[in-house]
Structure formats: C-alpha cells, structure tokens
C-alpha cells in the first residue's frame, strides 16, 4: 500500500464533522479497512467513496450500522446482478 494514497482519518472526520468512533465501528463490522501508521489511523483513498456513502447513510438517512451492513451486502448483489444483466444482454446480441 502506497503512503500517497492514504488519507488521515482524523482529518476526514474533522472535515465531515463526524465521530471517529463511527468509522471505527464500520471497521469492526468489516465494512471499511483502516491502517495504523505511527499511531495515526489512515484510510486508503480507494475506500473514500464507500466511506462517504456510509456517512450519508448514517448521518443523513438515519440508518444504523446493522442497516448499513445489510444495505452494503444487498448493493453488492445489485451491482453484480446489473453486471450479469449487461453481460447477458451482450450475449443475446449474438442471436439477434
């Protein structure tokens, strides 16, 4: 993992005005991975979109952690099904 792609968690939390314990809970539920470097927590920038999405779920839609976990799994399935649908449509094109 490259240092350049990491974002300091306390900075992220300060900017979004959220509690660091929320991100910690997401990590404990396996929804986000955070890394500790020299006593400071960091998050990979690739996970930023996902984390911001969870922040919106929790703080704006009042969805609790269990709900976020369930939604996360279901969204993964929705995305996989949409990919499969596209692939099948492409395959169907051969017979048209």
């Amino acid at each position, binding site marked *: 993992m490259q240092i350049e792609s990491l974002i300091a968690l306390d900075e992220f939390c300060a*900017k*979004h*005005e959220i509690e660091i314990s929320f991100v910690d809970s997401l990590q404990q539920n396996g929804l986000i991975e955070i890394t500790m470097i020299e006593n400071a927590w960091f998050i990979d920038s690739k996970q*930023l979109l996902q984390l*911001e*999405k969870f*922040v*919106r*779920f929790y*703080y*704006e*839609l*009042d*969805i609790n952690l269990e709900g976020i976990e369930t*939604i996360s799994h279901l*969204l993964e399935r*929705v*995305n996989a099904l*949409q990919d499969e649908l*596209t*692939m099948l*449509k*492409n*395959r169907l*094109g*051969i017979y048209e």
Partner: protein
Amino acid sequence: MNFIDYYKVLGLDKSASAKDVRNAYRKLARKYHPDLNPNNADAKTNFQQINEANEVLSDPEKRKKYDQYGKDWQHAEEFEKQKQQQSQAQSAGSYGGGFSGGQRGSDFSDFFESMFGGGGSNRGRQVKYRGEDYTTEMRLELIDAYSTHKQTLTVNGKTIRITIPAGVENGQTIKISGHGGPGINGAPNGDLYISFVIGNHSKIKRLGHNLFQTVDVDMYTAVLGGEITIDTLDGKVKLKIKPETQNGTKVNLKGKGFPVYKSEGQFGDLQLTFNIKIPTNLTEKQKALFEELRKTKD
C-alpha cells in the same frame, strides 16, 4: 422551472408539522436515495424532487413564502419589496431603508445540484465534500471500439479529450478522475463516469473479445473445396474451404477476434459458421447435370 407541489411530493397536506415533514423526507429519501439505487435515473429524479421539497418545507421561512406565493415563492422577496416601496411612497418617503436583501438569484434546482454531490445538510453540518460525480453515456459503433482512439466530449460545458482504449465493452463504465463537479471547501473534484453503449449494425457479432460471423459459401466450393475471401473488422481474409464442407461447419480463426481491453497486441478469436448456399434459378442444362448426379447416388 416547472411548478412542483412539494406537499404532494412528500405525501403531506398543508397542515403537516415540521416533524411530519422530517419523517416523510427521511422515509422517501431512504427509498429513493441514489446511493441505494445504483444506475436508476428515475430514483435520482425522484430524490431530487424530495430533496427540493424538504429544503423548502423544512425551512419555516421558505415554507411560509411557498405557502403564500406557490409557484412564485422564489420571487417572494421581490413582491415584498414592491409592497414595501408602495407603502413607503404612501408615507411620503420618511425613511430610505426598506428591504435590501433581495433575490437569491440562483435557480433552486441548481442550489440542489450544489448539495447533491456531497449529500444534503439536514443536520446543519457544513458541506465539505468532494465534487459531484458526473455520469454520461457515449455511443460507439463496434468498429469504433475495435481500435484505440481519441474522442472529444462536452460535459457540463467543458470539452475534454479522452482516449478510448480498444476493446471497450458494451455497458462498460470508465472513470476519468477529477473531471466531475468542483470540490466544496477545498475538497477534490468529483469524477466523470462514462458508460459506453456500443451499437452493432454489422453482420459480425461480439461476445467479450470473441467475434462470430456467418459466411455464405456457394455449394460448388463447399463440395469441391476452394478459396473464399471474407470481410473482417481487420480487413479482408482469404480462407481455404475443404472439399465436402457441410452446412453449419464452424471454423475458429485464432487471434482474428476483438482486441482484449487494455492488453495491447492480444486479440480474441473469430468464429466462422459456414452457410452453404444452394443454387437457385437453375438452367435446363444444370438441372440435367444434377439429375445425372442423382443417378450416381447409391
């Protein structure tokens, strides 16, 4: 901007309390939030309306104006200003103050758009989010997707030049980092997502990086063997036909298929299916010759 009945949008009547508005908004936002409805344009439109309705009805001042002026609520201050000026004129201009605030000047939907990339501000949190991600669709023909090429694209008034790698798939989405909406309060710009819709008006069918093509072969060549020339995406290809080739015979041409996405020099296969054409409009002589042939049959 068309008038939207915000009460109707949230399923409320005019007597709804602030709590009713909040609850209705939360309930509908959970249903239509774009994060919960990936690639669903209808949900995005619904969410935009819900958000607008909430922004107006959850703010007592905006709601008051909306209730009073309906579709003209955004011009409420202008009306108020005119009213005030009239009243000042009547009182012989004893003071020169009056309203100085004036119109927001911005379209409400634009206001929503500025919020949309980073979500709303319902809890009074300051919006400090990366810019909104833009999504767009690009239509290509199969032949266009066969080779890496550059194309210009105009997104929200900005023209950008992008490289489209050979082998891009129908329905595939690529991300152009930093070409989305501007970040708010120093946050990075959003990204631009381009989804490709690849039309195919050729006889060649594609599945992944393999191509499929039906090739007509005249009966004489199929029976006696010979050589045919076919058109492929890569140009003309000469092909030997074995004697006694049956209808529906498949031949696989390795490496003559579609380029493999982002794998330079790698190509899929081209699968040919032979369609043997039986001659029509036979002359008397030809018919007689076929009769002769039939007699030779066991």
